[in-house]
């Protein structure tokens, strides 16, 4: 694994492609996070809310995205993590997680981060500022 500190502006971290979103993923996240909003787990409730089916918790996708950085824990940590929720994630969607280094300011590495679905449509977009020790 390359060190995160050795990246150049324009370099990307290795993409991660998730398995197709399953209902059990979302049930597990509901339990682990305490977010039991039923539009994420129960079809009828999603339909009542005007959705075609259940959707993933935005925070589930945001939580997944952060794992692009986890392996570098000896070098630094995620200081700032900001996300805009851009599109809904449905069952069986295949989400790919991406991060690209945009700017370096001494010990601060500024990344653009992105999660796209199988149609390459952004579902979540934002920034990570990674602070090196």
């Amino acid at each position, binding site marked *: 694994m390359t060190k995160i500190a050795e990246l150049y502006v324009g370099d990307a971290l290795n993409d991660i492609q998730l398995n197709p979103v399953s209902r059990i993923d979302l049930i597990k996240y509901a339990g*682990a996070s305490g977010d039991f909003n039923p539009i994420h787990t129960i079809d009828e409730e999603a339909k009542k809310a005007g959705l075609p089916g259940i959707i993933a918790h935005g925070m589930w996708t945001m939580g997944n995205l952060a794992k692009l950085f986890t392996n570098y824990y000896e070098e630094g940590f995620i200081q700032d993590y900001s996300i805009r929720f851009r599109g809904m994630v449905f069952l069986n969607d295949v989400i790919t997680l991406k991060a690209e280094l945009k700017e370096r300011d001494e010990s601060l590495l500024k990344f653009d981060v992105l999660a796209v679905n199988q149609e390459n449509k952004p579902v979540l977009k934002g920034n990570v500022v990674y602070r090196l020790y």
Partner: protein
Amino acid sequence: MKEMIGKASKKVKNTVERGAVKKFAEAIGDVNPIYLDEEVGKNSRYGQNIAPPTFARVFDYGIIEGLNLPNKGLIHGEQIYHYERPLLVGEDVYCYAQVSDYYEKSGAMGNMGFIVLENNGEDKDGNTIFTSKSIVILTEAYRKVQQV
């Protein structure tokens, strides 16, 4: 709703529980040993396991009096975290919530309200560990039903 700006909850003591971190890491598919393996934690620069950055959403932030927004129909628009350092497994975190802004805008979903809710965590000496902001959208339909 505007009158809620500045209102905060009382601080609530939370603990970064090992089991909760494990369940959370598994739920986001981030089963890195730095979160889960005690040996790896002990030998790391943290001397302890840490928690994923979005784990902070698990904490109890208390109740802001007068703020009653059932989550059914709310839209989470944006989420922002700032960390001074990672959360350590086993430590106590004192958490509180605060309404930091409220504004209205007209858009595709009618006359929408935007509430900026802070969820912050401190150590036992009152030093900030993390701050976070959620921007939550109240659609016109939601505002009608909830009369906000």
